[in-house]
C-alpha cells in the first residue's frame, strides 16, 4: 500500500471513528434518538425503521459504486462494447424504490395523523415566541389547580404523564418550538395559532432550541420543559399563583425594588409590585419593546435560567445537582428554586451591566429607526455598580 493510500485510509477511518464516537456522547440533552414522551416515541417508531431501510439502501449503493470504481477503473484496457438500455433492470429499479417509498409513506401518514390528535388533551399552555425568548401562559384550568392564568418564560413546567396541548404563536417573526425528547418541531407564526402536543413519561428537565432562524440571537433562543410529578406540579402552581412580596424595609433588596420601579418596570411585570403611591406597577413593554412583551419576573428565581434560557441562574455546582438529579428527586430540587448560595451572580451581574454584550440584540439606539425607537431585546441601561448590587438583592427575593 502506497503512502498516499495509507493516508487516505487513515483519514477516512479517523472521520468514521469520530462520527461513531460522537454518537456515544452522554451530555446530549437534545438527542432525537432518546424519546421521553408518547409523541416522541411515535416519531421514533417511524424513524428507526426508516433510518434502517435508508441505511441499508445507502450501504448497498455505496458498495456498488466503490466496486465499480475499483473494478472498472481505467487501466488502459480496450473500450468495452456499449449497449443501450436494459428494460428488465430499468423497470425493476423503478418499481423497487417506488414500493419502498409507498411503504414508508403509509406509515408516515399514520404517524402524522397520530401526532395531530388533540381530542384527549388534558392541559393547555399558550406558547408565544419573540426575539429571542419563549413566553408561556397557562389559561385557568381549575381541574389542574390553575385557578387563574399563570405566566412564565424560558422554562415550561408540566405535570408528568399529562397530555399537554401547546398553542403556539409569535409576536414578531417565525420561530419554531422543539423539545426533541418530547415531540417534533412546530413553527410559531405571527397571526396564526398552531398546536403541538407534548407529554413526558418521567419527571426531568428536557432541553430544546428554536429551530427556525429568527435573527441575530437565534442561537441564544433556548427553552426547557420541566416535567414534575403531579404533587410537585401542584406546589409549583400554588407558588406561581401568588403575587411577589415586597422586601422588608431598610434592606438592600428594598432599595433594589426602588431601582426596579425606576428602570425595569417599563418592560418587566412583577405581579404584586406597587408604586410609591400604592397603585399597582403595570409594565408597558408595548411602548418600549418591538415585540410588545418582556418576561414576567414575578417568580424569576423559581426558574433555573434567564435571557431566553441561554444563561443559568444557578451556579455550576447547583446546576449540575439539579440537572443530574434522578427522576425521583429532580422535582424537589427544581422547586427549591435559586437560593442565595446557588445564584450565578457572575452572569446575572454581567447581564444587568450590559445585556447586549452577552446576547446580540438590536439594542443600539442608532439602529432603532426601523422599529420606531423600540428595542429588540434588553438594552444597556447604564446601571451603576451600586444599582446592580441592589437589583441583584431584589431579584433574589422573586422566588
Amino acid at each position, binding site marked *: 500500500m502506497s503512502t498516499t493510500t495509507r493516508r487516505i485510509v487513515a483519514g477516512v477511518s479517523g472521520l468514521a471513528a469520530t462520527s461513531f464516537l460522537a454518537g456515544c456522547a452522554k451530555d446530549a440533552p437534545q438527542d432525537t434518538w432518546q424519546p421521553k414522551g408518547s409523541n416522541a416515541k411515535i416519531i421514533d417508531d417511524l424513524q428507526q425503521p426508516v433510518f434502517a431501510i435508508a441505511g441499508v439502501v445507502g450501504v448497498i449503493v455505496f458498495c456498488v459504486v466503490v466496486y465499480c470504481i475499483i473494478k472498472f477503473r481505467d487501466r488502459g484496457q480496450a473500450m468495452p462494447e456499449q449497449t443501450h438500455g436494459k428494460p428488465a433492470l430499468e423497470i425493476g429499479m423503478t418499481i423497487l424504490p417506488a414500493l419502498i417509498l409507498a411503504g414508508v409513506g403509509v406509515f408516515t401518514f399514520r404517524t402524522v395523523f397520530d401526532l395531530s390528535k388533540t381530542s384527549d*388533551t388534558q392541559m*393547555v399552555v399558550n406558547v408565544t415566541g419573540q426575539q429571542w425568548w419563549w413566553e408561556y*401562559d397557562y389559561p385557568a384550568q381549575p381541574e389542574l389547580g390553575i385557578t387563574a392564568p399563570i405566566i412564565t418564560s424560558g422554562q415550561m413546567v408540566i405535570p408528568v404523564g399529562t397530555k399537554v396541548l401547546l*398553542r403556539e404563536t409569535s*409576536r414578531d417573526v417565525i420561530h419554531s418550538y422543539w423539545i426533541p425528547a418530547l415531540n417534533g418541531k412546530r413553527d410559531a407564526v405571527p397571526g396564526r*395559532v398552531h398546536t403541538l402536543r407534548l407529554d413526558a413519561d418521567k419527571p426531568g428537565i428536557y432541553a430544546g432550541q428554536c429551530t427556525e432562524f429568527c435573527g441575530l440571537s437565534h442561537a441564544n433562543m433556548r427553552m426547557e420543559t420541566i416535567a414534575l410529578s403531579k404533587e410537585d406540579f401542584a406546589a409549583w402552581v400554588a407558588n406561581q399563583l401568588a403575587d411577589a412580596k415586597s422586601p422588608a424595609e431598610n434592606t438592600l433588596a428594598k432599595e433594589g425594588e426602588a431601582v426596579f420601579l425606576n428602570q425595569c418596570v417599563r418592560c418587566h411585570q412583577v405581579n404584586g409590585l406597587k408604586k410609591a403611591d400604592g397603585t399597582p406597577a403595570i409594565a408597558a413593554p408595548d411602548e418600549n419593546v418591538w415585540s*410588545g*412583551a418582556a418576561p414576567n419576573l414575578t417568580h424569576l428565581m423559581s426558574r433555573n435560567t434567564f435571557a431566553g434560557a441561554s444563561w443559568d441562574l444557578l451556579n455550576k455546582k447547583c446546576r449540575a445537582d439539579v440537572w443530574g438529579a434522578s427522576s425521583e428527586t429532580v422535582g424537589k430540587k427544581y422547586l427549591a428554586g435559586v437560593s442565595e448560595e446557588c445564584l450565578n451572580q457572575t452572569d446575572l451581574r454581567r447581564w444587568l451591566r450590559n445585556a447586549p454584550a452577552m446576547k446580540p440584540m438590536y439594542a443600539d439606539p442608532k439602529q432603532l429607526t426601523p422599529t420606531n425607537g423600540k428595542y429588540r431585546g434588553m438594552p444597556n441601561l447604564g446601571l451603576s455598580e451600586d444599582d446592580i448590587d441592589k437589583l441583584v438583592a431584589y431579584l433574589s427575593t422573586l422566588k
Partner: protein
Amino acid sequence: MFTPGSKFFLGLTGFSLAVCVLYIALVDNATGGAVALLSIAAASGVVAGLSLFNRDGEVAVGDTAAPAGAEQLPSSMWPLIASVGFVGVVAGLITHPIVFFLGLIALLAAGTEWLVQSWSEGASSDKAYNASLRGRMLHPLEFPVLALVGLGIIILSFSRVMLAVSRDAGAIIFIVAGAVVLFVGAIFALKPSLKKTLVVGICVASAVGVAASGIAAASNGLRDDLVKAKKEHHFSHKECGEEEGEHFDHLAEGTISMRSNPIATVELRDGKLTARELGVDKVTQTITFPRSNDATIIFRNKDEKEARLTAYLGTKAVQDGVVEEVLNCTQMIGIDHEQALTFKIAKPSMASEKPYTLTVPGLEGQSIEIMVP
C-alpha cells in the same frame, strides 16, 4: 497628442466636474443635480476617450482601407437599447427605483446581447455559422425570458380584465376564453398543414387583443364593489355604530387560513353566548388572549336574528382627563353566518379597571371574559 475633438470633450468633462463640486458645496439637497452633472462628466469622458483612440475618425497614413465590395455588418439595435438603459439608470437615481431597475435590466440585457453578437460576428467569415454560434450562446437565455415576459403580460392583462368586469361577466369571459383557446389549440393540432404565418398571425393577434383589453380595463379601474371592499378594513372592523361595510367574510371558517388561525370561536345560539378555545373540546365563558399580539376570534351567529359581537378592549386617553372606551366590532352577522374579528390587547387584565369582554349588544347578562395574562 490630443485631437481637437478629444480636447473639446475633455474640457467638457473637466468643466462638468468643477461645476459639480461647486454645486455640491453651494446648494442644499444637491443629489439630483450632482447625479446629472456627474453623468454628463462620465458621458463626455467616455466620448473623449473614444475620440482620442480613433484620432477623431481621421484616416492616417498607413491605415488599410476596407477591401472593395467588403460586406457590411448588419446594423444592431443593442447600442440604442443600451443607451436607453443608461438613461433609465441615471433618471431612476433621481426619480423612482422602478425606473432605475428597468434601466439596469435594459442595460445588462443590451450589454450581454451586444457583447455576444460582436464576438460571434468576428468568429468566422461564414455568416450562418456565426449566427448559429450566437444562438447557441443566447437562445437558452432569450427563450425562457421572452416566454416569461410574454406570459406575464398576458396573465396581468387578463387579470385586469377580470377585476374590471362584473362577476357574472367575468365568469362568462373565463368560460368563453378557455373554450376558444381549447378550440383553436385543437385546430392547430389536428391541422398541422396550416400555414405557419396564419398560426403566428392568430397567436400574435390574440396576444395583442388580450394586452389591449388589459390596458383598457386597467385604465378603467376596479369594478365598484371591489373599490368599496378595498376601503373596508377586512379582519379589523370597528363598526360599532352605523353599518357601512358590505364586503366581509360571511363564512370565515370556510377560508383555509381561518381554520387553524382563530384563538377561539364564539357562538350565539338560543340567546346564549358561549366560546370554545382552540384545541379544547368544551364550552367556556372565559378565554385567554395573548398579550401584545394580534389574534383572531370567529363569531358565529346561530341565533334567530342578525347580531354583532362587540369586544371591549379597555380605555384610552383622547385628551387630558378624557378617556373613551376602546371597542372593536364585527358587522351585523346574518343567521348561520360568521365573521373573523382580529384585535390586539397590549396591557394585561390587571391593568384594566373593567374586565375585557365580548358581548352582543342587546343581549343582557351574557358575556365572554377575555383574560390577558
